[in-house]
């Protein structure tokens, strides 16, 4: 296989990953790294570098649309970006010190966890009869989000806990080259108790900045290869744009289950290959 064929193959695979990532809401990053490493034998450091830049492309594109719809809580997002960018720098620093086998095992665990999350039903709207949190009030984070009955107010809670969890999400993102949107959403949805749609859109808003923070470190360390990152970025971007078009009205339940099983299998394979020292 020469470089031309190799590039086209990666482009097609990334297109599929971006499409599935957008349709299932899990993002393309989680499958790009296994696709490149397990499928094509690419060194995991190159794979992570290429995946990171594709994460910036998809999240920036999608964030633009969400901000316009008015779901994104920009103040909360900016505040929590302090945590995710610091985490991303820590993760990128760890990536240079931890063995590739260990990275593969951690990646596998995250894949299995994402698969578990995707198998759970997405729930909408909780009761908003809660008292405001003093810290959230002082930081002017409480906001409203659009519903069919007009703007609905909500309160933000547990900012210190959310901040620490997002630091962890940033670290995973910097270490593994993924958006770690699943962890971000979980932290905001469960710990900070904000509406689900606000969690997902604000998470997306933060993913680009988080990935940009670790990309700088990866670039300077020579992990971002132009020949590899080019088809990955262009493929994932186009795939996610097509995916976002079809998202409305598409029956994504079956797709989520199938994708969840695929991710589970990839996770097991990543761990197996990491433990046996093949990655």
């Amino acid at each position, binding site marked *: 296989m020469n470089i031309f064929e190799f590039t086209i193959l990666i482009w097609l695979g990334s297109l599929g990953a971006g499409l599935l990532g957008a349709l299932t809401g899990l993002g393309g990053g989680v499958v790009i790294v296994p696709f490149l490493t397990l499928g094509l034998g690419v060194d995991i450091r190159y794979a992570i570098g290429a995946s990171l830049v594709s994460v910036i492309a998809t999240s*920036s594109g999608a964030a633009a649309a969400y901000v*316009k719809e008015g779901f994104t809580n920009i103040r909360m997002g900016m505040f929590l*970006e302090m945590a995710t960018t610091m985490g991303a720098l820590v993760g990128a620093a760890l990536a240079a010190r931890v063995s590739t086998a260990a990275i593969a095992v951690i990646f596998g665990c995250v894949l299995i966890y994402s698969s578990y999350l995707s198998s759970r039903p997405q729930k909408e709207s909780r009761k908003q009869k809660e008292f405001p949190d003093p810290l959230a009030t002082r930081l002017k984070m409480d906001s409203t989000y659009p519903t069919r009955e007009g703007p609905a107010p909500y309160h933000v809670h547990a900012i210190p806990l959310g901040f620490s969890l997002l630091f962890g999400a940033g670290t995973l993102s910097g270490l593994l080259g993924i958006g770690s949107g699943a962890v971000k959403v979980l932290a905001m949805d469960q710990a900070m108790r904000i509406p689900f749609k606000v969690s997902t859109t604000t998470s997306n808003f933060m993913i680009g900045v988080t990935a940009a923070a670790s990309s700088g470190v990866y670039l*300077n360390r020579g992990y971002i290869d132009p020949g590899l990152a080019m088809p990955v970025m262009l493929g994932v971007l186009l795939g996610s744009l097509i995916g976002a078009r079809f998202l409305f009205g598409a029956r994504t339940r079956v797709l989520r289950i199938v994708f969840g099983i695929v991710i589970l299998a990839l996770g097991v394979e990543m761990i197996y290959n990491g433990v046996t020292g093949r990655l």
Partner: protein
Amino acid sequence: MSFLKGDWTEEGLDEKLGILLRTGVLISAVVVLGGGILYLIHAGSGLPHYRVFRGEPADLRSVPGILKDACSLRPAGLIQLGLLLLIATPVTRVAFSVLAFALKRDQTYVVVTLIVFALLVYSLVGGGL
């Protein structure tokens, strides 16, 4: 420039942020695609080498090196320039937010966004932990 004029209310600001993000991604995708086509014409018949990790050469690792390579239209340099523009997109968005919060005289968030901006610049100029 009409982009900087006019509506600095919350909604107007969101609109500008959206335009900024979309434009950044679009420009970088075009540059990456252009560099990619040149790269395939030049190196398409060679063999891929990603099984063994060697790291990129020094000129493709730093901002000045990438700019120099891109100016002499080297394919790899052009792709890296596109990727650099992509990384710069969220960074510009944060810089824009600093300005927006400053115009709203929201000092807390000027400090918050400045911290995020500083961390991003620190990472881009080659600072690691």
